[in-house]
């Protein structure tokens, strides 16, 4: 998994894999690959959830002299 992957992308892919398992009846090799990928994605998403920090950037105003 690349570092650039966002939570949104990972979660969407996890949902897609879950749906795949419910619908497709593909072979086990494919299933195993998807399963491993799914677990990795779940781990990644969980790790992301552990991030609690909200960063605040003050927008540098171009419009008033106030402050």
């Amino acid at each position: 998994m690349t570092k650039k992957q966002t939570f949104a992308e990972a979660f969407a892919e996890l949902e897609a894999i879950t749906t795949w398992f419910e619908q497709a009846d593909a072979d086990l090799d494919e299933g195993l690959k998807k399963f491993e990928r799914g677990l990795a994605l779940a781990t990644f998403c969980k790790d992301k959830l552990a991030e609690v920090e909200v960063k605040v950037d003050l927008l540098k105003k171009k419009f008033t002299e106030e402050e």
Partner: protein
Amino acid sequence: MQPVISVADYLELVNAALRTIPSENVVIEGEVAGFKVSHDTWVTFDLKDEKADALLPCFLHVSKLTVPIESGMRVHVAGYARVKEQWGKFSLNVTSVVPTGEGALAKAYQLVKVKLDAEGLFNVLRKRAIPRFPERIGLITSKEAAAYGDFMRILQNRWGGVTVVHASVHVQGQLAVPEILAAFAQFNAMSAGERPDVLVLTRGGGSLEDLHAFNDEQVARAVFSSHIPVVVGVGHERDESLCDFVADVRASTPSNAAERVVPDRGEMLRSITFSAERMASTFMHRIDRHRDRGERAMRAIDRFFSDIAAKLASAERFLASVDPANVLGRGYAIVRKGDVVVKDPATLAHGDALRVQLARGTIDADVRNGRVKSEKRKVEGQTSLL
């Protein structure tokens, strides 16, 4: 002998005298009567005094009308008096006219609302979805306001790993409208990497006068034409503003705006766990049907077992212990007969050859007295978890 001057010269004297009135220092309050727009350009009305029998003719260019005005409205007017030479008529050249008092403000509000509605600014079909997991949030509100604290607190309680880009603006008073407009312009002009995924315009509740910026036609249009989806949350549940109606998502309060913008991490954790479990269980069923497919599938079962066991033991250890090597490292073993993992001693007979996999290697063993001496408990224990 008295000097003789022309009419024009005399009116010039009159106007010079009128200019000595310190008009810029006063605002005249009265009620609008006979409001009329000629040729879409010139606006005339009379400003009436409620108590005294007094009347002031007013005159202005239509571009000076920033808020809709109509007869019967109570207004504050600023301007300077002069006599128009061509007609010899005295009037007030109006530089600004704004409704005042709840009644007039309510009327002006209704007028703009009807106008914007007719133009389609409130159309539900144009409302855009906001991203489910925004990474950058543009927040337009006053740093001092309670709304800021409420929004940030709820945001932080629910979600993390996001950046809030805060445009600190006045949310009431004269600076509010230009600052809010500038903030929208600035966010929308940002490059793709900087630009927020969603904008939040919010403030606490208040009177119509307090909320004027959120009922301003220009601000409503800025919300409408923003390329970035906009969530608007004003005051208490009962408050409404024109920006609310234009917004892609209307939140009832600043706190509610935070709830609408980010998901709840507890819910997401449950959702992820649920997804992983569903995936695991459907995969398990499939493997059950292809039991003879060998070692790889078995490894997957092992992973699943350790996954479930760890999840039940502790949410934090959930997926960390998915790898069978970790399980073996804690002293467990996997017992196989041929390629099949042994789960039930009843499937074994005296003398069966077993292979016991430990963390650092394997040992071969035989079944004595139809009983397995090593680690069957664990396998059984896991099976029961299903």
